[in-house]
């Protein structure tokens, strides 16, 4: 990805991004869904959008996946 694309992506905000608190509230459900059916992003698109943007929450998600795998 070019630097300009990276900058554009960073500045782009999605109104459906629910933020860290709502993501934390659902991350256990999201992770179980992903491991069981692989369609968590379809079921919870807002959470998926947040995880694509928020580095700390995405790392927590990877930690949860690792613990349950």
């Amino acid at each position, binding site marked *: 990805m070019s*630097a*300009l694309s*990276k*900058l*554009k992506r*960073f*500045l*782009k*905000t999605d109104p459906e*991004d629910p*933020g*860290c*608190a709502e993501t*934390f509230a659902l*991350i*256990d*459900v999201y*992770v*179980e869904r992903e491991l069981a059916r692989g369609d968590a992003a379809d079921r919870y698109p807002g959470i998926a959008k947040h995880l694509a943007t*928020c*580095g*700390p*929450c995405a*790392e*927590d998600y990877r*930690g*949860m996946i*690792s*613990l*349950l795998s």
Partner: protein
Amino acid sequence: MLDPETAAWVSDLKASGPRREEALERLHTVLLQAARREARRRAIDSPVSGVELNDIVQQAADDAMVAIVAKLDQFRGESRFTTWAYKFAVLEVASKLTRHAWRGGPVILDSEAWLQLPDRFGFTPEEAFEQRELLASIQEAVQTALTPRQRRVFVAIVLNAVPLDVVAAELASNRNALYKTLFDARRKVRTFLVAKGYTEFE
């Protein structure tokens, strides 16, 4: 309908006397194991190890347990109880490890290191020169369109690359509030750029 294991956890933790004490002990063991695994996973990229890492694991398990006991009534059984409990351990490890790793590092929240901006997004010196007007407009947006708090958070996280959890601790705030602040700042900067004619940011 809770699965039998989850139902047993909730029932034991809501009981009283020795049954509850025994459940709390079991929960602490589960949290300690989860925190240790998560800390080891993250420690690959971290300078923290040995006794320091063990202390962080212990504190994370302790704090996760306090949070879980306080929030037990909010558990709706949408996941297994242990999965729900894990997320508190992961969050505590993340927060403590990040803050520990940054300990002693510069948390320069007010120094506007604008020269860092091209680097943060990977612009080469040639690209930064080509995009100098755009980069100057971003600086202008941050200085004129953001509130003082938004500016402070933007500068710390984007220019000084301070981790979100560290800035949250520094400002006595939390990850969610800081993310929202940065979210609004990003939106305002983009709106400013579009208004200046950078329509590719629409």
